[in-house]
């Protein structure tokens, strides 16, 4: 009887290196992980209060509901749940998707929907479908690092447009498009998270939404609207999605069950014009044939017997108070030179510190005090964001939020004071209140970035 040896035979290290390095595609040469990867790995330690993740609070999902759903599947659709499914997804799942989109006032033809393995697969498939190496994608700055990585993997040239508290500066987008046009470059699509942006925490205003849709039409430009957080709104009236303003002509829509039900299901979807969708479908066939049938049936069973809106309401209540706790803690513990966004929903706050603080190094210091966040540099491809950080408020309870923000605040103050000592600036001067405060908005609302803020004000006045 033959068997495999218990361990692989010894391999020579240098040959290993050369062998593998020689095999890697040119594509992977741009797939570098961030310099802070090893630091981020430390934030998984159980003693660390981590604001680094983007995790929904799945512990608030009732386990008896989960048990009832799975029992129902076992009783009624066991064979189907264990079987392959169509590449574009099960028809019943698409009806659930139409239901979710209707909750944000979108009417969708289920023929235009393709069910995907999480929203992340939409980013991959859309990029695979549209991008040749060197093609241009326009995105927000800062942008979701997971999207930037998908774009980079297809060797896209990503141009990032500044944001302020009203989301992407569409005027700057137009300037950027003009400039690219003069260089003979025509972007394939604009990537945006208009509502409660990750990582910026800001929301694209209605006038800008309308203008963005107009720009897309005028220039025949595709827009990929990524909307994972739209239903997690904690204040104010809902804004129409770009998809509903455009009617699905130039806007492709990315949705997901991750933030309203479960990221563990890996269930998302894309809505796109039929010619684009059929190409995406081909790409998906190559990638994974179909999205997990079991996950799709889980969603169906859940939607059929429970009011999913109730659960979103429960989550929103929890997240709203966690957001408020974090905003209060920031006001109490962060020094006056720090600025941060005040998200009306979603999961993230984006804080910007004085530019002499590098948040990757700050993270190393913060980890000594067992607290973590995401350094901002990964949200840009052009070296910006080094003084910013993304703070997640959905994944920690309120005591931990208060304590974690207090610890980060202490570390920042320590660095501000040290910098003051090094440059001869007085620490007292360094903690004076900022010149621009908008007290009527219940907190310090900052626009991204600060320079753009002043320019915009100047233009308004």
């Amino acid at each position, binding site marked *: 009887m033959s068997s495999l040896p*218990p*361990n*692989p*035979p*010894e*391999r*020579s*290290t*240098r040959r*290993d*290196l050369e062998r*593998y*390095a020689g095999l*890697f595609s040119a594509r*992977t*040469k741009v797939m*570098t*992980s*961030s*310099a802070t*990867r*090893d*630091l981020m*790995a*430390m934030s998984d*330690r159980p003693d660390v209060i981590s604001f680094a993740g983007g995790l929904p609070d799945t512990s608030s999902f009732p386990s008896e509901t989960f048990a009832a759903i799975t029992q129902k599947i076992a009783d009624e659709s066991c064979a189907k749940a264990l079987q392959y499914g169509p590449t574009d997804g099960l028809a019943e799942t698409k009806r659930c998707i139409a239901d979710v989109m209707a909750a944000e006032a979108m009417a969708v033809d289920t023929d235009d929907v393709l069910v995907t393995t999480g929203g992340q697969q939409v980013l991959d498939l859309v990029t695979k479908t549209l991008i040749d190496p060197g093609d241009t994608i326009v995105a927000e700055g800062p942008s979701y690092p997971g999207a930037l990585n998908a774009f980079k993997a297809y060797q896209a040239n990503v141009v990032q447009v500044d944001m302020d508290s009203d989301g992407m500066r569409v005027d700057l987008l137009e300037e950027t498009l003009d400039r690219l046009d003069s260089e003979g470059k025509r972007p394939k699509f604009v990537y945006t998270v208009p509502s409660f942006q990750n990582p910026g925490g800001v929301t694209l205003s209605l006038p800008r939404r309308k203008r963005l849709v107009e720009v897309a039409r005028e220039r025949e430009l595709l827009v990929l609207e990524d909307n994972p957080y739209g239903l997690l709104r904690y204040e104010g009236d809902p804004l129409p999605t770009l998809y509903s303003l455009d009617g699905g002509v130039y806007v492709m829509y990315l949705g997901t069950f991750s933030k309203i039900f479960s990221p563990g299901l890996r269930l998302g979807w894309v809505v796109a014009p039929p010619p684009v969708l059929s190409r995406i479908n081909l790409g998906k066939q190559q990638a994974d044939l179909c999205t997990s049938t079991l996950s799709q049936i889980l969603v169906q069973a859940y939607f059929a017997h429970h009011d999913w809106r109730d659960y979103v309401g429960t989550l929103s209540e929890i997240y709203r108070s966690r957001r408020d706790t974090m905003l209060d803690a920031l006001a109490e513990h962060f020094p006056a030179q720090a600025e941060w966004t005040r998200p009306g929903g979603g999961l993230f706050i984006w804080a910007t510190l004085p530019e*002499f*603080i*590098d948040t990757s*190094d*700050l993270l*190393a*210091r913060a*980890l000594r005090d067992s607290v973590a966040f995401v350094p901002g540099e990964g949200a840009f491809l052009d070296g910006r964001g080094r003084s910013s950080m993304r703070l997640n408020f959905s994944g920690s309870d309120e005591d931990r939020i208060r304590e974690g923000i207090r610890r980060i605040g202490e570390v920042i103050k320590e*660095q501000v004071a*040290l*910098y003051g*000592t*090094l*440059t*001869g600036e007085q620490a007292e001067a360094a903690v004076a209140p900022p010149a621009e405060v908008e007290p009527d908005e219940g907190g310090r609302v900052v626009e991204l970035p600060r320079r753009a803020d002043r320019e915009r004000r100047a233009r308004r006045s």
Partner: protein
Amino acid sequence: MSKVAVLAGGSSFERQVSLRSGARVEDALERLGHDVVAIDAGSDLIQRLRAEQPDAAFVAMHGRDGEDGTVQELLEILGVPYTGSGVPACVRAMDKVLTKHGLVEAGIPTPEFFSFNQTAFRELGAADALPAIEQRLQFPIVVKPAGQGSALGIKFARTAADVPGALVAAFSYDSKVLLERFVKGRDLAVSVLEGPDGPLALPVVEAVPVGGGDYDFQARYEIGRTEFICPADLPAGSTERAQELALRTYELLGCFGFARVDLMLDEGGELFVLEANPIPGLTETSLLPQAAEEAGIGFDDLVARILESAFTRSAQARA
């Protein structure tokens, strides 16, 4: 055949690298026929070691705790023979400032430097001395935390305006930092391995960042980001001189078993020792395994030799 505990992980910033080093060492030790116990060094380290009663510990930890003498001290108390340098050498090597003072005293060239702790700036007005330091070292100046094993926290200050921010960054990792003259040139590493006739300098490895740029933390551990040339193609005499300096550094610090000494070869052909690593990486991209390979010592053989040195030192200590 011995029962060997492989200590890896820990809570240093080089945890991930250490886990990879440890995994490779475990595989090699098993191939060599040893009974391997993998231990992720955490709060139960002592309990695990007491329960397992290993014949030796292979320390595959990098950075704080693993490389700075802490774990070695604990192993001494438990009486477990362990690989690599002893406590005093680890303490000296992990602290770049202690290392460099030793090098200067021994006449081993190292880039000129100044070192301060935070209190010097907070309480003694050291900031007022920065212009004099900058004039002395000339820009660009390298600013480093004293005790960080990897390239994390190392900044290049190109002008006086960069220095305060670079110091703040370096102080994120350690309460002591150094400002060092930048040596423009080639980045070399000489690994030293204990042999039957004493320490042996292995072939020189040159690290060349792909596409230029500073040799940074990312490049150091990622396949494809840095090209390693071994043996380095150096001007006549430089290889021997680099190996000699590495051996002298190894002996000066009191290292044992193995270590890696990092050097710069400047454009005038001068060699400078930057630092010594008492537990260099053993990952796929690490320099010591490459150098050993070039010297005809495969990875398993390398691991066997390093393990053997643990027993040798233990026997020497008892004698």
